[in-house]
């Protein structure tokens, strides 16, 4: 029996969203973890992360974009035309994280008529006051945009409440994330990713009891798992909800005890300060998230990785990048050097063509780590 039935929950949620929409609620689609969902909720919108990229839609996306655009962007554009969940959106929020994401909203605007907001996040990561001030200003602009569409003004108290709920949710997810670290993992990374993707789809009020329930079942060892050496850290481009082959292949042979994926553990890191000006608190939290590799400098990302490696006794790194994802690709060599650990590099485009080859490479990598390949 599965620990989490994500597909089922997602299907039910789709129906629910259709009903909500029919009752006049506005759905806000977003792509990136720098979007402050608390603010969207406080403005009466239902935030949904759109991260269901897959190969067929990415291929179809080449009708609008060159083949050398990143598969996630190609797929996202296509899904806005064809995926039932994406088509429900009343507004879309983009962040200018990488060059592809910076330019995607413009293309989206030529294909669909959903109102689009581009949140400008400084690409430099040092928290100088003028940068944070501008980001806070951007959040206020975002608030205006959402409010215009939902008709709900944001009041500080409501925003504070949403911040507290967001903190509770992240904290609950962090406590469950810790279960994958033990020598006999009580939770797999595949399951963790399922939960995190549900956290971007369901209401926190529905998710929090579910997390508690899963935690309870997981810690009671319902699944009686075996120790699965070796211990890996997973890094690289966004892993889409429907494209988890790398994770499942790895987990056949090893334990992923840490990750720095934006649809994974990076989504649940840290808490937003409460009790102060909520816009300022949101700006500081989101500006200072562990930087994406496209921010400059991205030293904090490397420090975070090194810390995870030390704390979780990581033995090897699996570095997976989407084809043409420059922000991650350019870091491969330095990451290998900075950590000194064996690293398996996987470049993919969601296609399953090389599935068997990938399995062989992963097996060989795991053998090297366990010493069996010597």
């Amino acid at each position, binding site marked *: 029996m599965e620990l989490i039935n994500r597909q089922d929950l997602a299907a039910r949620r789709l129906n629910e969203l259709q009903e909500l929409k029919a009752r006049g609620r506005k759905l806000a689609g977003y792509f990136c973890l720098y979007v402050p969902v608390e603010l969207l909720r406080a403005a009466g919108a239902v935030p949904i992360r759109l991260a269901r990229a897959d190969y067929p839609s990415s291929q179809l996306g080449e009708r*609008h*974009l*060159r083949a*050398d*655009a*990143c598969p996630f*962007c190609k797929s996202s554009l296509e899904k806005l035309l064809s995926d039932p969940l994406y088509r429900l959106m009343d507004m879309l929020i983009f962040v*200018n994280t*990488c*060059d*592809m994401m*910076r*330019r*995607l909203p*413009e*293309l989206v605007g*030529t294909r669909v008529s959903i109102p689009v907001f*581009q949140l*400008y996040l*400084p*690409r*430099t990561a*040092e928290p*100088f*006051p*003028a*940068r944070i*001030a*501008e980001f806070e*200003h951007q959040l206020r*602009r975002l608030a205006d945009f959402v409010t215009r569409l939902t008709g709900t003004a944001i009041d500080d108290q409501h925003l504070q409440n949403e911040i507290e709920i967001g903190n509770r949710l992240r904290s609950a997810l962090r406590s469950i994330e810790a279960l994958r670290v033990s020598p006999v993992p009580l939770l797999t990374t595949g399951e963790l990713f399922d939960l995190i993707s549900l956290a971007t789809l369901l209401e926190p009020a529905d998710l929090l009891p579910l997390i508690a329930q899963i935690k309870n079942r997981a810690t009671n060892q319902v699944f009686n798992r075996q120790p699965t050496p070796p211990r890996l850290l997973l890094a690289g481009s966004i892993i889409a909800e429907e494209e988890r082959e790398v994770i499942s292949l790895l987990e056949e042979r090893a334990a992923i005890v840490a990750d720095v994926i934006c649809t994974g553990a990076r989504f649940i890191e840290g808490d937003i300060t409460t009790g102060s000006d909520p816009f300022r608190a949101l700006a500081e939290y989101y500006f200072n998230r562990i930087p994406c590799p*496209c921010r*400059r*400098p*991205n030293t904090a990302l490397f420090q975070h990785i090194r810390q995870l490696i030390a704390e979780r006794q990581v033995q090897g790194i699996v570095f997976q990048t989407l084809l*043409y994802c*420059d*922000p991650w690709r*350019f*870091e*491969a*060599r*330095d990451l290998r050097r900075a950590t000194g650990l064996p690293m398996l590099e996987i470049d993919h485009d969601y296609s399953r063509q090389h599935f068997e080859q990938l399995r062989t490479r992963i097996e060989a990598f795991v053998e090297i780590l366990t010493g069996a390949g010597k």
Partner: protein
Amino acid sequence: MTGFNFGYQDPVPARITFEEWDDLFQQIPDELIEKFHYFPPNQDAWSKYLFPPQVFAIYGARHLRRLKFDNSLAALRLWGFVNNESERLFRARQIGRRVIAVMGDLGPLAVLVNAFPDCVPFYPDCWWWTPFVMESKVLLETAARLGIGEATCYSRAALGAFAKHSYFPDPDLIIAATGASCDDYSGVENLVARLTGSCLWVETPLRQPENIEPLSDLLVAEYHRVISALEELTGTHLTESALAQSIAQANAVRTMTARLRQLAYQDAVLPALEIMVIEFGCLHYYSDIAEWTAILRHLLATAEYRRQTRQPVVPPEALRLAWLTPPADPLLLTYAEDQGARIVATEYVINQALTLIDQSQPPLTAIARSHIDGSLNGTSRERAEMLIRQAQANRAEGLIISGILGGSHCAMESRLIGSLVREQLQIPVLEFDVAPPNREIDRQTKTRIDAFLELLRSRR
């Protein structure tokens, strides 16, 4: 008549080869060759730069053998000066100037650096060190070893150049802007920062038309950090008048560049290659704004004279092309002109540095505003519209988009720009990715350009 030309009489305007320049060079009087020096008013023998292209080919710029050049004295000056930049930077260091690498913002940082005495700004990705001109893969191979391999913009050669330590001196300060620049270049900057161990990062925001004031405040705050770093480095306090003077100099360069483009595109009095080199000069003035300004004046006088005397250098009746890059491959421009086309509108990614800085505003705000108004900070649609306006004014008959496989912005915007041009101008568009730098243009690209020009001819 030849007052602007130091008493020298230019031959009838023509694009000439490398060998032909050698012959022509023999006819230039010695006193004239002695006359031009970089870092004016210095007149020391080491600072002469008026040499024929062959001299620079010997030093490694072997591509020069395959290009064609304008045959005026002003153009010879241009080529000598541009090709000599590497030497000039090493000399700068020898004579005690500070060499400052400015990266990624296409213009404003050089204006700030120039406001400091004895500081020389340079662009490490300036095309004279790129593989297009060096005919060698060494820089690309070095970049690959450092983490940036194929399917990326050729600007990665800049990373190779930093690692090699032989194309320019190790800078006293590296200032790297990121934000509106592309991922390829931002990645190059990031690895340069790691390689060299130090870098001052500067944010360059996206343009949001309804949010200009806050964005320009952000930029001003960024510029204050740059100024503090330069003050610390030089031990000088920046005065408002020094900054105002630097702005005035930059504006003079930008104004002359704009006029030269107009003369070339409308009256065909300068070839496309020279114009591209002139445009690049707005980024950092080839590390010597005083002499660069003098050269632009000379070029402008030559071009105006040709216009008045109706002496075009390329046939005005040639097929009129608009060209959108990156990358700007000199061989391709040369080839297009050889095949009976001429360039009448361009967007080389460097139009950014053509926007004038409003001298009536507080200096830093004015620099910030002009930067935000630049072509690269906005949307692809705005970039397309800028090109469309030029193309329309100069009656372009076709558009060439030469891109890079894996160049992050090419992937996202080439098609959009192509379709906007097609829609609004109803002209054919040819889109291709340039092959990696090589001795020759690859056959496929040649065939595609030939067929495209044939199509344009048939539409006349």
